[in-house]
């Protein structure tokens, strides 16, 4: 008995150093392979470096080049415009549709689980497979989508979807939204189900119909969740790469019409196959801009979220 209690006391005493023992391994891996590479990459933006050979400190030269020198400045503006298009279109094709479907799912009709299963299925596929699959579906000569359009007499609409500067980014956005729809849908559904039942009941007693209840009660209560799903899309879209890589290649054709930050970054960093060599300094500069935009988005969201919750 006596021995037991002294041991216990000793253990309590030793606790000062115990948490370090538990946290250190995760801390090391996370720091070495995530934090350091991130900060290291930001530092590279102040150097001229081709990935091999010597690094030369150039101050903010890379930034000046990116913002003012052709072709970098033109690509940058193009990428910003395309990425915002990609973002807004995703909100429309993905989040707004997901919100509508989530509301319908919340009515708990029979077969709800089956439909939920179906709606979420594409989310489990690899982005690269989704990209290739949609490229095949959109094939201009025999692709099922154009064949279908032709079969119902809409030959005029049977375009070369991915080869047209006006439609290619829209198609890529649809493929991307098709895949990820399930996630905002489930977040919205959880949000709707979390709404206090008594609020709904009192609205029914007040003679509210479903539509009115959705508009005046559910939607306003969902505002924080709408904000969260929006920022998730923002972060994802401003770092997206694979979907464009699969559907339009690293050159993000045709004529850079599908070029977004992710492809611009990758292309600059690792070089274009036939023209430019790899440029780690400029790649890091683009990555820093991406981090800046993403952080800005997150900060704006946090401020907005605090205000909404008050």
């Amino acid at each position, binding site marked *: 008995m006596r021995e037991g209690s002294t041991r*216990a006391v000793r253990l309590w005493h030793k606790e000062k150093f115990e948490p370090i023992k*538990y946290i250190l391994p995760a801390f090391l891996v996370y720091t070495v392979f995530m*934090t350091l*590479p*991130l900060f290291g990459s930001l530092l*590279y933006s102040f150097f001229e470096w081709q990935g091999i050979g010597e690094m030369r400190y150039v101050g903010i030269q890379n930034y000046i080049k990116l913002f003012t020198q052709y072709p970098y400045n033109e690509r940058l503006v193009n990428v910003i415009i395309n990425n915002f298009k990609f973002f807004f279109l995703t909100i429309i094709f993905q989040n707004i549709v997901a919100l509508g479907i989530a509301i319908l799912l919340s009515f708990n*009709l029979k077969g709800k689980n089956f439909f939920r299963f179906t709606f979420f299925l594409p989310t489990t596929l690899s982005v690269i497979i989704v990209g290739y699959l949609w490229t095949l579906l959109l094939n201009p000569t025999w692709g099922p989508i154009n064949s279908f359009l032709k079969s119902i007499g809409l030959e005029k609409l049977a375009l070369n979807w991915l080869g047209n500067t006006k439609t290619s980014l829209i198609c890529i956005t649809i493929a991307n939204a*098709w895949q990820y729809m399930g996630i905002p849908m489930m977040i919205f559904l959880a949000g709707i189900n979390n709404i206090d039942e008594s609020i709904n009941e009192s609205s029914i007693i007040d003679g509210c119909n479903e539509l009115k209840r959705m508009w005046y009660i559910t939607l306003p209560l969902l505002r924080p969740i709408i904000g969260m799903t929006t920022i998730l899309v923002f972060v994802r879209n401003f770092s997206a790469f694979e979907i464009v890589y699969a559907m339009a290649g690293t050159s993000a054709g045709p004529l850079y019409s599908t070029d977004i930050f992710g492809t611009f*970054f990758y292309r600059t960093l690792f070089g274009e196959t036939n023209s430019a060599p790899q440029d780690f300094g400029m790649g890091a500069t683009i*990555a820093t801009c991406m981090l800046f935009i993403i952080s800005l988005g997150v900060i704006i969201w946090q401020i907005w979220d605090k205000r909404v919750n008050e």
Partner: protein
Amino acid sequence: MIRNKISKAAIYFVFIIYALYALYPVIIMILTSFKSNLDIIKYPLSLPKSLYLDGYKNAWVKGQFSTYFVNSIIIAFFSLIAIIILSLMASYGFARYRFKMSSLLYLYFLAGIMIPIKLGSANLFRMMRSLNLIDRLTSVILVNIAMSIPISILILTSFIKQIPDSLEEAAKIDGCKSSKILWWIVVPIVRPAIATVTIMNFLPIWNDFYFPLLFIRKENLKPIPLGIAQFFGEYQTDWSIIFAGLTIASLPTMAVYLFMSKQFIQGLTAGAIKG
């Protein structure tokens, strides 16, 4: 709630339309994989005339799918084991001990949740090269572990905090070491959370294309997504082989999803905030 028959019918109508939209590409992929090239071009919309299996045969023989699968399994297995062990330990440290800096350190981990590690590619590439890890699966595994730790710690810490202390106190008084308490008392209780963390990390790791693209060049080390990209590029106009390859590559996850859809939906939704 909805009593009106017309509105019920309208809702089902929307559901069925959306279900068709969600399933159509996948169904087309599977159906087309059983067609010959000629049939794909001539009758893109019809059902396969007969079960044409040459696409599969050729895809399996020409593509190195068995190698891709093994590589994917190795990457996923070692990444997940390390993620679970490291995150469990750290979460236990955060949930059960208060010390100077503990909340700051916790924030340091959480800060990484939404940041896409892709942005560190330049430095990561250089690191892997100087560590001689280019063309080693270890490089992909290490990055997977690092980027999954923040979200895993967030989930596991909140779960461990919910466990009442009394069990552990009793064990402690009996002279049980804290490491024993973690592995023998805490871990069995948080099993459901471990399952969630496993699933939420498994799929993004299994489906990841970016880091294998950066670090793996050797054909025999490619995981499925990178392998399929190689395959797609090589057989660009041999449609039946391509559709068969895509089907082979996506079948494993779809099969697992079929049996564990609830856990998948839950896990992936919870993991959605990962950058």
